[in-house]
């Protein structure tokens, strides 16, 4: 991926996880994080978020990860934005389905806050342009 990873649109329904993750991503990874508490919020925020990456939870009330991804893909701003799923559901078949939907990677929960940023960078670096 040629462009530098700077802004992350982070969609997670649990507030506490959002807080921990935000701190890990900003403090440890040095990213800019745009937080969204639901898929709907993400869709609303996306046009102006100017995100380089979407970090997306799967199990969420209302729009789940898949629905959110589909909605984001319909927006011009995020139609081609890379997506990483961050989820507890990481059975091989599940992982395969995320990748099939166009995700560039999967980060299993619970994640290690000190490692997660490096993991994201590694995925970002390995993803095609």
């Amino acid at each position: 991926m040629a462009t530098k990873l700077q802004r992350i649109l982070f969609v997670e329904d649990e507030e506490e996880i959002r807080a921990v993750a935000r701190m890990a991503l900003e403090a440890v990874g040095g990213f800019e994080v745009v937080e969204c508490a639901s898929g709907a919020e993400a869709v609303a925020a996306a046009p102006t978020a100017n995100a380089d990456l979407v970090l997306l939870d799967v199990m969420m009330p209302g729009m789940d990860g898949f629905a959110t991804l589909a909605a984001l893909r319909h927006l011009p701003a995020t139609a081609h934005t890379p997506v990483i799923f961050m989820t507890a559901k990481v059975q091989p078949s599940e992982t395969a389905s995320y990748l099939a939907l166009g995700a560039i990677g999967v980060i299993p929960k619970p994640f290690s806050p000190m490692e997660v940023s490096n993991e994201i960078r590694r995925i970002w670096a390995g993803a095609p342009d």
Partner: protein
Amino acid sequence: MSAARAQGDARSRVAMRAIVLLAVVLLAAMWLATWQRSQFEMRQAITAAQLANANLAIAYEENTDNALGDVDQLTRMIAVEYREEGRGVGKAIEAWSVDTDLIRGLAIVTARGETLVATGDTRGAGPALRERLAFHAAHPGTALRFTTPLSLRIASEPAVRVVASRRLETPRGEFDGLIVAFLNPAFFNHFFTRVEGDPDGVVSLVGMDGFAVARQTGKVSTFGGDMRSSTLFEQLALRPIGTFVSRGVRDGSTRLIGYRTMQEYPFVVMVGSSLAATAMPVRERTRLYFTFASAMSIAILLGVYAMGRFLARQRRDFEALSEAQARLRESEARALAITENMAGGVVTTTEDGTIVSVNAACCAMHGYRAEEMIGMPLWRLVTPPGRAGLAMRLEQMRSDKAAGHEVKEILALRKDGSTFEAEVLNSGVEINGQRTMVGIVHDISQRKALEREHRRDEALYRVTFDQALIGIAHTGLDGRFMRVNRTACEMLGHTESEMLGMDYARVTHPQDLPLSEAHRKELLADPMHPFEHQAVRRLLRKDGSVLWALLSVSVVRRDDGSPEFFLTMVQDITELKRVERMKSEFVSTVSHELRSPLTSIRGSLGLLAGGVAGALPKPVRDLVLIAERNTERLIRLVNDILDTERMDSDRMQFDSKVTDLGTLVARALESMQGYALEHGVKLRSAIPRAAVAADVDPDRLIQVMTNLLSNAVKFSPPGGEVLIALARLPDGQACIEVTDHGPGIPKEFQPRMFQRFSQADASSTRAQPGTGLGLYIARGIVEKLGGSIGYRTAEGAGTTFHVTLPDPVRHRAAAARPALAQPA
């Protein structure tokens, strides 16, 4: 051909030969006797004829001798007289009557040739006299001499005369003339004609000089004739008197000849009779004999022929009879053998039911001896309740000659009073005009018992089939239901009549149908296939809902091994599935619900420990680290529980590919370095230069290796070393070994090593914290990868765990086979 017929044939041939032989002997004897008799008679006739001829010859000789004696005496007297009287004798002679039949003339001729006296018929005798004169002048002796018959011309008539002459001598013995008598040879014939003879007979007076004097054959007289070369003279050379058989030179007829040489005179008398005449009466008799013999022969031959015909007919009759007898005997023997060897008892009775005959089986059934049964009333073989029926049946057969046979089941009675169930086929037949009842009895107790047992089994089976709490269905090879039980119907919501004839495909979930089809084919194809096949299938109820079922399918085969139908047992596991799913969902939910707070806790603690929130005082930092470590442990526990649950429900997923194991070993080693460092244990690896690959899910294999490594580290003493080694085994398998030098595995723990939640130290204060699921999961993963896991341990010396993984090439080939297990 039957033996009897062959025997009859042989006997008849011998008889025929004897008859022919007898006939031949008889014929030969008869013909021999006839021939001998005829020969004998012929010989006898010939002998008689010869004797007669000899007798005649004697008579003839005497007669001739007398006649010639007369001539001799006359001429002698004349000679004496001439000597005494001289010329004067003439008167005396003239006075002599010489006109006898024999002496036809007398003459005395002087030495000078002067006829002194001539009396009788002497005419024309001049030349003969001169010849005689010359003869006697030359031959001394006064015996009477005879000439051969001479033809003289007497009184100008030809006459034949034999000239008898005697020399006359002077007293001094000088030749003085001769006396001549002219003899008529016919005299001898005349004599002979007086003898009865046959027309072909012959009488002859022959001079010793070989010339016949007179010869009479039949009515023909001849005089003279040279006989010197005749058979007579051959015979005379041998014997003076005799008989012989001659073949007439002139007439060609054969004659029997008797001859005698006269003693006084140079003549031979010969009498012959024709053989034909002699033989004729004999021949006539012989012909009679032969006629008789011929007649007899014809009679004998006719007899033989008739005998032959008779014997042939006899033989045919005998053969026919023998064959008929043989057939009869055979038929009788067969009938007897059949009757005796019949499994069924056979009993015959008179019209009134008195037993006439029984076979062995009947005796055996009723426990009697045959002689006991014969004469016994039939009702004694039947239990009292059946006797009335028996009497009625007998009465029916007596009154109705056309009554057909009847088959009846009765309770029969044995001699010892016990009973048995019997089936009786009875009918009436006419034997030699006698009405006979025939009963054929079969002991059907066993059959009945079997039938009862069968009915009971059937009922039992029916009850079991109908009341079983599992569904049972018999499905034809065409896939259609043949029989279904109530439970099966209830399960699927169909009535029995709806299900019968329905194709099983209609109640099978479309996604499971190909698998079911494949299984049915496999079961059919291979009779050695495991007797039954168990599988979980989704079935469709009538209302379209899904029924999870555990099916047990087997093929029911006929005696010859050919498949008849499928037997399917259906267990409704929908509820089980629901519970399973609930449990699974529960575990999954709980895990997820646990993960969310854990994510927050881990994140918070991680950031705190990482100093993101600023530097922490040491006691705080220590506590945070404890919390973080235990969070990690809790996360591992949750993960392990999830894995265990997935494994148990066979839902653990594998993303296998052929992978270089060296890389995976290095990754596992690297991930465990921190943990090892914490325990003061050194990790070392031994990876061969040549790549070792296996068909594995890399993450899962790393999970196994880290588990083994963490165990090894955990049980290693501080400063110890753990070695992870990779190798390719000679058989192509890959082997990963993890070796520690810890205390080894206690014997008592070894059997439980790979069980869930088992730990060597179960105390709550165990020094080595773990979930107790590690080895259980490791073994599950390795086995799923087609490999195996094991260990070597020695107490106090350490433990080596080894994982073997199959050769990727073979493993792929094996994995290519259709999976039979139902995916959950």
